[in-house]
């Protein structure tokens, strides 16, 4: 049989990370190779083209487009202020001239004497890219961006909302299975990344928003709460662009699910450390999962990124159960029988045998576990 591959999520106290920080369009790189950068430092910047504003000049002048050239006062590439004269008719004997003015500040992109349409472009919009994580610039991609590396404690979440942020870790939950009381979130949590246990309820999220918490790390999140928070149902998992004032990273899934003990202990271990998190999640066509990055001390020579490989299921591999029953439980693989076996739903599947953390011995479809990579 070919090797048994399985999806995996990394939870580790030390990993060499490599992040590309790229501009959406070509621009200027602000740092050089070897520079040490902090998460909030800008590493590259550019100017995005402004919005295009179509403007039917021929209609405004009341002339056929092919005669427009007799009246037009501008040419392609001209810089405009709001109110700049675009065209003027000759009127009758110099009287009743009509003037058409620019509705925006910007420049003239194109003039069509076929359709009579002007395309005006609003001023360029500056865009900057921050380093996102503390580290060293190991490579420059000219005019596009940089590659930053560091050594970090690192957790891949399963689902998130909200963009990139950073702050100090503050563990508020007493245990990985705790349900956090919103009253525990006070002013000391402002700008912090708070860690809940099994679930971040809507009340917790609302309180965190009010206090000015930068981010929430939680085991689970309830879908109805998420809908109430965002005001809409998430249809396809492409997230990270929500503007809710904070970032949420769920490490296990939807519902009330204990945070993996190892993840919780890692958060405890690094309490007070600065961490960078983001909620970008995309399940298809370029899988992206939210990340929790806690930079640790390192020497540049240590920065050797491990070769990427797919996670493999072997006897002894640590797994997380990702579907009912026993959803969220952690265990170790004890057997990998080859034969297709029917499960309760009568589906014939390839199974594995595992011992869960509570000592329970179970048989599971291989598709219903993920490897916890260390």
């Amino acid at each position, binding site marked *: 049989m*070919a090797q048994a591959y399985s999806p995996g999520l990394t939870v580790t106290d030390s990993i060499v990370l490599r992040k590309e920080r790229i501009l959406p369009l070509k621009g200027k790189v602000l740092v050089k190779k070897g520079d040490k950068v902090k998460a909030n430092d800008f590493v590259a910047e550019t100017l995005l083209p402004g919005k295009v504003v179509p403007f039917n000049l021929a209609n405004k002048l009341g002339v056929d487009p092919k005669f427009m050239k007799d009246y037009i006062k501008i040419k392609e590439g001209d810089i405009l202020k709001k109110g700049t004269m675009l065209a003027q008719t000759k009127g009758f004997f110099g009287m009743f001239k009509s003037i058409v003015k620019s509705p925006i500040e910007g420049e003239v992109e194109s003039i069509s004497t076929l359709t009579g349409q002007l395309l005006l472009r609003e001023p360029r919009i500056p865009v900057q890219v921050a380093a996102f994580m503390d580290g060293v610039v190991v490579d420059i991609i000219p005019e596009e961006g940089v590659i930053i590396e560091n050594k970090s404690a690192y957790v891949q979440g399963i689902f998130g909302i909200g963009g990139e942020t950073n702050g100090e870790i503050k563990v508020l939950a007493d245990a990985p299975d705790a349900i956090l009381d919103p009253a525990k979130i006070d002013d000391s949590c402002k700008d912090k990344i708070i860690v809940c246990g099994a679930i971040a309820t809507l009340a917790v999220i609302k309180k965190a928003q009010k206090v000015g918490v930068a981010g929430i790390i939680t085991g689970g999140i309830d879908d109805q709460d998420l809908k109430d928070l965002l005001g809409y149902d998430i249809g396809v*998992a492409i997230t990270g662009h929500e503007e809710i004032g904070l970032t949420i990273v769920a490490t296990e899934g939807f519902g009330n699910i204990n945070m993996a003990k190892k993840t919780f202990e890692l958060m405890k271990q690094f309490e007070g450390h600065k961490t960078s998190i983001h909620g970008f999640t995309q399940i298809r066509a370029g899988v992206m999962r939210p990340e929790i990055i806690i930079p640790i001390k390192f020497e540049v020579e240590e920065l050797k990124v491990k070769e990427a490989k797919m996670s493999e299921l072997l006897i002894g591999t640590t797994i997380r159960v990702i579907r009912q029953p026993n959803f969220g439980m952690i265990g170790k693989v004890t057997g990998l029988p080859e034969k297709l076996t029917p499960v309760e739903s009568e589906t014939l599947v390839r199974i594995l045998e595992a011992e869960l953390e509570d000592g329970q011995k179970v048989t599971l479809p291989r598709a219903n576990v993920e490897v916890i990579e260390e």
Partner: protein
Amino acid sequence: MGDAQKLKRIIATDCGSTTTKSILIEYIDGEFRQTVRGEAPTTVEKPLNDVTRGVINAVTELEELARIKYNDDSIKFTKDNKIWLTNKEDQGVDAYVSTSSAGGGLQMMVTGVVARMTGESAERAALGAGAIVMDLIASNDKRANHEKIERIRHLRPDMILMAGGVDGGTTKHVAEMAELVGAADPKPRLGSSYKLPVIYAGNNKARDIIKETLDKKTDLIITDNLRPTLERENLGPARDKIHDLFMEHVMAQAPGYNKLMSWTKGPINGKLVDIPIMPTPAAVGNIMQTIAKVNNIEVLGVDIGGATTDVFSVFTEQRVFNRTVSANLGMSYSISNVLATAGIDNILRWVPFDIDKSMLRNMIKNKMIRPTTIPQQLEELVLEQAIAKEALRYAFIQHKEFAVSLKGGQRQREISEAFSQSVSGDTIVNMMSLDLLVGSGGVLSHAPRRNQSVMMMIDAFLPEGITRLAVDSIFMMPQLGVLAEISEKAATEVFEKDCLIYLGTCVAPVGKIKHNKVSLTAKIELPNGETFEEEIPFGELRLLPCGVDETAKATLKPARGLDIGAGKGQEVETELHGGVVGIVLDTRGRDPFVLPDSAEERVPLLKKWMKELDAYPMEILE
């Protein structure tokens, strides 16, 4: 067509978003059969970023399974880490073909002048070529120009198809659309190192204007107008260009595809030549049209995947082919969108037990974020199949709205007809005249009981009159679709013998009468020698045994006011085909089919029907 007789072994793969599936087809005792199948995760994304790794893994599994099957350790399909193409007897394979939908498939944007005319023709060309149409932008689509520009810029399609205007007609609107595309300066999805391909298939008089506006900014390809006159569609040239560009641009940008493209080869006229990789849906469309052509029947097919649901149909005497893609209706990546589209109550109306709504919401979201999991518990299987019914139902609604009478490939019509029908858009999908309904995709092909596939297909599509049902056993239609390019004989033989599993026939009178009244009087001589005879009341299901390759002689008389194909109240004498499930008599009503709103009334009915169909183990229906 290729040298079918000389082919001994063929490997075909389908590189899906999640899984790469491989099949081995062998020429045994004078016919082609599919003998072994394998699969492995697709590796088009990080960390491996090379589609060929998944292909080699899937083919290695084939190799290992073939060695076990034939007890021959010398069997070898790969050499030097690639597929071993050779004409040596008993070594390697003679041909290798592949389809692909990895990385989200082919994503296109189309433009036209009038949305319901040239716009729809462009959409049809793109869909027929196997694309997902991200948006249709037309001069008359009511969005302001700046909104259209923002939309084009935002979408980042793989390519754009521009149509508009009849040949020799006015050029102004087409020119305006080109200006908008030019102003948006769209960037391709898969990288900025190449220019975005734009196909112009509109008014031939506007070609110079289009060149002037777009030639520098985009990789412009000009082809024949896909709507040369109002009465005629000419979709072939645009479709061919889409296929060419799919290979040259989109595939060439995807990780590892350059290598894979150099592997796909087969013998044509004695020479080993490149066989282009085909977008998966285009290949499925190929095979659907072949079924309709070979058997001279009307066919409706559905492929419900993790991310999208494709519906294919071949209707009318002219055998008009239509394909639609419901891009956000699927059973894993898009499962949450089924909930958002259908609403939780529409899903729960198919569930024969109580379940907490919040639990169901979380279950659906967990499936979305971990799309490869499978229902281990029976309750979860029932819930997934309820969700599938709604996904299929909505995908079918979208298909019916799109498959309208004007839109036949190269069909001559009167001008008056073209105008009236493009506006009114009568669907050509006629469930009463439909001969065969084919289901495929994990939830239908791999349902633990085939009876569940029958239940899902009947509940979602509501076939009318007499309709045969089948499923694609292991979803090999894509591979067979591309295989037809080198050997139609191999493709059709495997399709008939190994791919299609006939489930049986559904008989459903159309119309509604009171519940206690007789809906259908049936007398059916079953192949086991028994005769089934019953006056079946309205609102019932019956399942009769009739196996694969068996038929039953039936006399069917619907109640006055109901129709099974010959007219209201008209008796039909016919032969019903069997299958692995049998013959289903469905008197629950059509047009409309109504489920009671209250759970108290509905749940006992669901349980009764599910028991009759033997859809689930009894314990969940007690």
